[in-house]
């Protein structure tokens, strides 16, 4: 088979969202039968790029050719027809249907009034053989493991004679043995001449199966080459580029030169496990300390926060608060009573009561304080809320409905709400997501100020510059485990990323 080295050809491709370039002037070519990786941090433009390839996103400029034919942009069905199949993190398997029906979902080629089941079962078996799987066609998809469901999805793509298979973080929810099996399957598909585009944070996997790769940073191609001669370390360094000088850090360090943890250890967690995912989580936090949790999305940072806040499942381990062993909280209510509060990631969905007014939201954790006898006093509620919110510049009246506020104002309401009950430990999950720069700084300052008053703070953020800027110490989380601890001058964006990409063994070995 003659390999077409420009099987996928991308020329001058850009995508703008408003004034923001998600992808800028991408020029790459991928040979037929290659396994090609897209590598980059969160927000580097990988998703937009595969979105354009799969036809879900229309490019602003530039062209994509597959097999010398230009794509019909923004038409996923057309893309599927010409042989581009995408498997997303979120599988599209319908649990109530059988394996067979799932594989033939949306299949129209033998479209007659009645389905020839015998023929389909035959085809199913062929596909299963190709992938070395023994799934029976009549099993309900709901009784299959995630890995098997993923196999069904691949079978569906093969059934459509796909020539290009795009996989977005396919191993993120698989166990190690399942990962290995998937990688073997992909190697097999490569043998058959199928071109694979592989998006993953796991460099080990990429080194194992890929022939070439593209590194993206802020929407630009940093590197586009074959994998020969590259190591994981070299890829990581290339990916990071120059260390971005973090303005936040300089600013906050100059404004709060004395923000250091007290000597007293406030809270210790030993061998915590939860959700069948977190393993051996052990750490301590001092009074007045800001502890950052670094790591990629899905690494287990939010799972740690949830478990501390009484939302864990199958929780094991010990917690010691102020030198006394405590039961691990089984509900948020218990956590709050112990002095642990959480400002969750999804403000709108689970953080706030959007139909309630600002002052009601601020007081909701401790409604009785707004009461005269058992009656709710609006006057008292407003007065208390004004007190708790005085440090924040809320640009709307205190009786506004929260749903009418901007993201920044909503975050201020959320923070006043959780800090109003005088917590010992404050956990903030993505506190600056979707809010503008000025308010971001306000939020970070508030965290510093709270720490000065002796509150211990756990900060989770995908904006690593911010974690670096506020934290006294950073724990790096990867695949449900704490893989590294950084302190003082050792804390940097690069160090956090480096240790979250390199697997546990390498960090310690």
């Amino acid at each position, binding site marked *: 088979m003659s390999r077409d080295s420009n099987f996928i050809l991308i020329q001058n491709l850009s995508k703008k969202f408003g004034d923001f370039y998600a992808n800028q002037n991408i020029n790459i070519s991928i040979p037929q039968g290659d396994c090609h990786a897209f590598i980059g941090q969160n927000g580097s433009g990988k998703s937009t790029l595969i979105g354009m390839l799969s036809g879900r996103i229309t490019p602003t400029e530039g062209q994509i050719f597959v097999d010398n034919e230009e794509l019909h942009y923004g038409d996923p069905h057309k893309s599927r027809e010409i042989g581009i199949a995408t498997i997303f993190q979120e599988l599209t398997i319908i649990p109530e249907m059988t394996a067979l029906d799932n594989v033939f979902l949306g299949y129209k080629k033998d479209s007659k009034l009645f389905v020839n089941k015998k023929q389909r079962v035959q085809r199913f078996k062929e596909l299963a053989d190709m992938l070395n799987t023994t799934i029976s066609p009549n099993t309900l998809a709901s009784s299959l493991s995630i890995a098997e469901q993923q196999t069904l999805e691949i079978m569906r793509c093969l059934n459509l004679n796909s020539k290009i298979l795009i996989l977005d973080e396919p191993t993120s929810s698989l166990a190690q043995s399942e990962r290995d099996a998937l990688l073997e399957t992909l190697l097999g598909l490569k043998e058959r001449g199928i071109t694979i585009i592989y998006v993953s944070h796991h460099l080990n996997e990429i080194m194992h199966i890929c022939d070439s790769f593209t590194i993206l940073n802020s929407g630009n191609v940093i590197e586009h080459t074959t994998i020969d001669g590259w190591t994981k370390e070299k890829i990581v360094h290339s990916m990071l580029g120059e260390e971005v000088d973090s303005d936040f850090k300089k600013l906050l360090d100059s404004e709060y030169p004395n923000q250091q943890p007290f000597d007293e250890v406030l809270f210790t967690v030993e061998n915590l496990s939860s959700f069948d995912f977190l393993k051996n989580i052990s750490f301590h936090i001092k009074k007045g300390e800001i502890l950052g949790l670094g790591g990629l999305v899905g690494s287990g940072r939010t799972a740690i926060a949830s478990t501390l*806040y009484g939302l864990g499942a199958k929780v094991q381990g010990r917690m010691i608060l102020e030198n006394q062993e405590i039961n691990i909280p089984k*509900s*948020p*209510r218990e956590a*709050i*009573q112990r002095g642990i509060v*959480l400002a*969750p990631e999804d403000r709108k*969905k*689970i*953080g*706030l*009561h*959007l*139909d*309630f007014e600002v002052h*009601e939201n601020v007081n*909701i*954790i401790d*409604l*009785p304080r*707004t*009461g005269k006898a*058992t*009656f*709710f006093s609006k006057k008292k509620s407003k007065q208390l809320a004004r007190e708790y919110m005085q440090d924040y510049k809320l640009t*709307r*009246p205190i009786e506004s*409905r929260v*749903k*009418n506020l901007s993201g920044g104002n909503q975050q201020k309401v959320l923070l006043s*709400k959780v800090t109003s009950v005088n917590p010992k430990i404050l956990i903030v999950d993505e506190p600056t997501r979707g809010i503008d720069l000025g308010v971001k700084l306000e939020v970070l300052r508030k965290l510093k100020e709270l720490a000065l008053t002796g509150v211990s703070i756990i900060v989770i953020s995908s904006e690593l510059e911010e974690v670096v800027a506020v934290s006294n110490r950073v724990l790096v989380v990867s695949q449900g485990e704490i893989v590294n601890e950084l302190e003082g001058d050792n804390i940097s964006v690069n160090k956090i990323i480096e240790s979250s990409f390199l697997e546990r063994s390498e960090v310690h070995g």
Partner: protein
Amino acid sequence: MDNNLLQQESVKLSPLKQINFKTLSLKYGVVVAFLTLIVVSSFLYTGFLNPTNIFNMLSQLAIIGIMAAGMTYVMITGGLDMSVGGIYAATAVVAASLVDTSSILVAVLVGLCVGLVSGLINGVLVTTLKVPPFVATLGTGSVFTGFALVYSNAQPFFVKNPDYKFFGSHYIGAIPVSVIIMFGIFIILGISLAYTLYGKSLYAVGGNKEASHLAGLKTNKLILSTYMISGLCASISGIILSSRLAQGQANIGASITLDVIAAVVIGGTSLSGGQGAIWRTFIGGSILIMISNVLDSLSISSYWQQIFKGSIIIIAVMIDFYGRNYLQNKGGS
């Protein structure tokens, strides 16, 4: 340019500007409909505003209204109680059977207990056992009705003690006792929903259950309490009915559940929870009773009335849905 921005900002900040006719009519449209209906009815039926007719309507409203008040609590938290008809029938039968064998007091107390226990069962199913409210209460409703049939052997219990008629048929001054009971319940439940911390937390749970849980509210206990209130209200109505008829019969609850839900929904309490009020339910129930009163006076058959009633419920739910979407979009902009 700057000036323009400033102006925009001041427009946004002014609360008066946010109130426009459409928003207002969606919020208080039911009041307008209520008043319009009174005017129209008094033209169609000359005796409509006659005190006798008004008290007649109010005492009809008592039974549905009391149950609807309890239902409002359930629906504010985002639930639904399909079993009120069953509880109502079971209470009527149990209370009627006890009046002559023991005493009125015992009959009433045991009757109320039937309601509370039924509500407790519903609440436990919905909260602890996480059965969806519609299915759970549809099931228990059938169980309670079945219990009433078994208990009474499908025969009515006749009450001989004339004093038992007090709740359903007597007057204090010119006002029927049942109407006084109804207003008492509306006032107590209305105030506690609108003005107490408990009421506030019910709205919180209905508006966003997950956020309420994260804020440390006892969401399960709050939800359970609403089913108990609904059960209690249904049993009060059951007692009033058995008192009015001087008998307890098991087959009375068949269609009343729909009327009760209709009263709540027509008033404008949201099926999705978080929004609503007791005064709304009073108006919703009144609209329902007034319509059937006028249609009766015009000798329109009850079969046709059923068609009307169903249509009105669907229209009310549609107004709720589209109106809410409209307000939501406005809020989001």
